[in-house]
């Protein structure tokens, strides 16, 4: 991804500057905010519920974005671990929107680095969206079944099915909405890369 030609001054794995401003401008356009706003206070990372599981913390994601180090960013698990809880966006002193930036990064990563999306997460998203594509709504039994097939986590949570059924929480027959064609058109027009 780093399109800038290695300059004689940059040895081996040191990034040469200024880098090609490719990713940065895409994100700027997608979210209507300039990542240059960020002054690296880290309040986003400090409040991030997933920070302990991320190799790149939120403020580091924004920093890499400022440096336009696209490959490092787009191939990282961390952007997929964001829960979009919006804590970072709510508390950002510079009124930047890290959550939106991460969403935009995911959209690009899905196209450019589909193999790097963690399997369980991509399985969930595609199972979820498949439900909507099929029925217009999410039919939870179908979601779980499809998810298991895609993720390979066949036996997780199996013990909970009887409990769900007993409480009347799992319907077995999906209902399809009448406007399903409309919904499918939305999907085709949004031309989303299908997560694997």
């Amino acid at each position, binding site marked *: 991804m780093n399109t800038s030609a290695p300059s004689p001054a940059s040895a081996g794995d040191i990034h040469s500057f200024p880098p090609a401003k490719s990713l940065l401008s895409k994100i700027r356009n*997608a979210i*209507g905010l300039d990542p240059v706003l960020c002054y690296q206070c880290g309040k986003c990372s400090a409040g991030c*519920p*997933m920070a302990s*599981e991320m190799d790149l913390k939120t403020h580091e994601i924004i920093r890499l974005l400022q440096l336009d180090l696209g490959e490092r960013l787009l191939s990282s698990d961390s952007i997929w*671990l*964001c*829960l*979009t*809880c*919006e*804590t970072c*966006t*709510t508390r950002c002193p510079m009124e930047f*929107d890290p959550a939106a930036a991460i*969403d*935009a990064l*995911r959209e690009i990563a*899905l196209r450019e680095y589909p193999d790097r999306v963690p399997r*369980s*997460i991509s*399985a*969930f*998203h595609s199972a*979820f*969206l498949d*439900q*909507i594509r099929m029925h*217009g*709504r*999410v*039919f*939870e*039994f179908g*979601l*779980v079944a499809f*998810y298991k097939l895609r*993720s390979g986590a066949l036996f*997780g*949570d199996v013990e909970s099915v009887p*409990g*769900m059924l*007993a*409480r*009347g*929480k*799992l*319907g077995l027959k999906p209902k399809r*909405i009448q*406007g399903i064609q*409309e*919904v499918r*058109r*939305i*999907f085709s*027009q*949004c*031309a*989303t890369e299908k*997560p694997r």
Partner: protein
Amino acid sequence: MRLGYFPGCSLHGTAREYEESLKAVAAALHIELEEIRDWACCGATSAHATSRTLGVALPARTLMQAEKQNLDRIFAPCAACYNRLASAQHALAHDATMASQIRSILDYSPKTSVSIINIAQLLSAQAGEIQKNSKAPLNGLKIACYYGCLLVRPPEVCKFDDPEAPNSLDHIVSATGAAPVAWDMALECCGGGFSLSRTASVVRLSRAILKSARSAGAHALAVACPMCHSNLDFRQQAINKRNRDGEAMPILFLSQLVGLSLGLDPIQLGLHRHFVSPQPLLDRIGMGKLQPERREQV
């Protein structure tokens, strides 16, 4: 009062007790809920995490459906659905590129004046009525009000209550006669949509919330989101099995608490559908047993 009603997928599935209790409470408070015809899923996290346009287009279609029904107010009880609808509306109003994209996809441009309200807004406006019609005030109950993420964040989309120190749920809980406890985890994320895909994260995050509520002396948690409910109720079994954190903590939908205070039948409110039995809570306020034969099936 007539309100457009967007139940969302969960309320027809794993969170059906939320819908049951809502409908019972709405009837008791004379609120007419008119379901949006042929609504589609809001797309939840999966849509916006993979395509920003999809994340706006799906809820925009629902806004379009509501408009066709001449509904000028839409009530979305699920906090996640509420947030997606409100975010989509915000994007349509503030992002001209997105608005024109949506117009070409739907062949329609949804009005941005329709007001989208969540359960906290609906019920806090009814707090006086709730108090007035209270047949079984929940005196003595200590409730931790859990706002989660999507009810108040981000503030420029939700535009109600303080995003850092909210009190609308506390206000409603007070109206039921129960006492809201002071605690600091009311806005922390439970793990949201990772229930299936990263269960361990959900267990870690939800456990912290449960521990904090317990140490603040709460008897139960009140929630406004089916996803939070599932993480805190259904996943609590695993949390409690692995740790010795204390008593199991019943997780109630806000509407169920309000329903109880209005004297509605616990079964009608779907209280028997929870994984963590709210029976200790009912005992505390002197209510009867949830039908034992049904519970034994579990």
